């Protein structure tokens, strides 16, 4: 586990030692605030709720999380450092978990920096802090699921741009499975039972339960096992592809 920590520290430092981290955080904060205030018209709604803030997260993460995670393995494979990493006494699990947790922690830091939103809504009214808490938790888990998908696609290509595009497409698909338009479309030719089963796999539906203030164990288990599944696939892809 000490090696997991070593990998994690190295990756996390890597983010903050390049301008990418600051660019990302600023864009994330501007985008969330911009969507909340200008598109969702937070002030006009006159409701002490952060719903208009969280509702944008699945869509903003769609581009921002792959941007954070795309380099994790692509860069490692492109520059040949993967050969160094996997001839050091580090296990595959330690390396994958270390990298994933570093990027997740980085997104977590960006998420924490949205705290002025909470202050604003608290100053203007008396919001339900329980819902705000579960929404933050849901948002963080959602970001983790996006990131795990990105890790998988990052391992597939040496080219960061390809990793990014594939990740965005895959994440988009995982969100759309649960979005009304798509489920209605499925209902058109599939039995409801099957279309419901499909949308039960969506990031979107599980994220929504957090937004309702529920600490739903099924949703938590869903996100954690989704992350576990994607990272396992990541390990298999790495074993297959590391030689190339």
């Amino acid at each position: 586990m000490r090696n997991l920590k070593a990998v994690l520290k190295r990756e996390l430092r890597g983010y903050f030692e390049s301008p990418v981290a600051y660019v990302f955080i600023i864009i994330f904060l501007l985008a969330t605030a911009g969507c909340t205030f200008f598109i969702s018209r937070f002030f006009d709604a006159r409701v002490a709720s952060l719903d208009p803030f969280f509702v944008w997260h699945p869509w903003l993460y769609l581009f921002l999380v792959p941007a954070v995670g795309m380099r994790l393995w692509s860069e490692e494979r492109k520059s040949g450092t993967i050969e160094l990493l996997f001839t050091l006494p580090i296990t595959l699990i330690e390396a994958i978990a270390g990298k994933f947790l570093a990027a997740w922690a980085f997104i977590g830091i960006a998420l924490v920096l949205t705290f002025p939103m909470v202050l604003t809504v608290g100053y203007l009214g008396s919001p339900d802090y329980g819902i705000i808490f579960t929404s933050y938790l849901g948002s963080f888990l959602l970001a983790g699921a996006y990131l795990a998908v990105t890790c998988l696609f990052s391992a597939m290509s040496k080219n960061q741009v390809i990793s990014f595009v594939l990740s965005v497409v895959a994440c988009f698909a995982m969100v759309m499975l649960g979005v009304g338009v798509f489920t209605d479309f499925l209902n058109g030719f599939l039995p409801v039972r099957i279309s419901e089963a499909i949308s039960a796999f969506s990031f979107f539906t599980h994220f929504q339960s957090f937004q309702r203030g529920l600490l739903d164990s099924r949703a938590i288990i869903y996100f954690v096992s989704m992350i576990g599944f994607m990272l396992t696939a990541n390990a298999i892809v790495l074993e297959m592809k590391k030689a190339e």
Partner: protein
Amino acid sequence: MIAVESLAKSFGSIRAVDGISFTVGKGEILGFLGPNGAGKSTTMKMITTFLPPTSGTAKVADFDIWENPLEVRARIGYLPESAPSYKDMNVYDFLMFTAEVRGYDGEERKNRVMRMLETCNLKEVAWQLIDTLSKGYRQRVGFAQALLHDPEYLVLDEPTDGLDPNQKQEVRALIRRMGREKCIILSTHILEEVEAVCSRAIIIGNGRIVADGTPEALRSRSVLHGAVTLELTGEGIKDALADLQKIEGVARVEELKNDDLPAKAAVAEGEEAAGSAKNGKSSLRVRLFPKKGVAIAHEAAKFVHERKWEVDAFTLEKGDLNEVFYNLTRGGEKA
């Protein structure tokens, strides 16, 4: 000891390494020779557990690469080809990272890194991003990373690649020094490096071992080995060619034109053409090839002395590793 047992690796239908077996002991410096794509790097990647072999195995200090890859990795210092390192880190942080992964912490970790900065002459660039360093420095960073835990086993893939001649000498001296108490495998396609550094050489061609022995033993497989090269001046020297055939033990005599000469002889010769008139006499450059296993230097010297030719040069050839290499890896190819 590193023991490699019928190691093989296929990439799709390409057989990159085709059943290689050898053992290297402590105090040995084994040179891996072979043309590009012969399977040198692939073999090293398998020994260092980066690539799983298609079949066969290797043991490092009795730890099997299949069963105990982490133990193997802990004991090996590995310098991969072109010395990859994290370019977004500075040299110090990078070495601190490898030291941490190698299990050092606190003062010990710092001390080891400082010692490596010293050994590899990296002190002046310790705080620079690896990205901004020249090829030579990066190579040294790779070296520092490989030596940090003072491993018993070193696997070096083209360790002097990208270094200038002085740095090459330094690195070779370093390898020779370490070779006394370590077990080293290095790959190279620079033949003089093998002669300068290695106690043993293995030539690989098409994924197989085509020769295994000391550099001297390999050189003795050269056609040139034991041949005598003469530069003669004298009256009627043109007829000497047939005359020289009579020397006992000589299998064949060959006249050397200027463009046949090895580079160093050609330089010594200057612009002067062989066979040109010199003070009314003409000169001749010939090479006498011995019959197998016969030493002819003595006889040749006596013979030339009896004929009263002036000897401008008399060289006993040791054999040319380049030629052996060429014949084993190209000339000997059936396909």
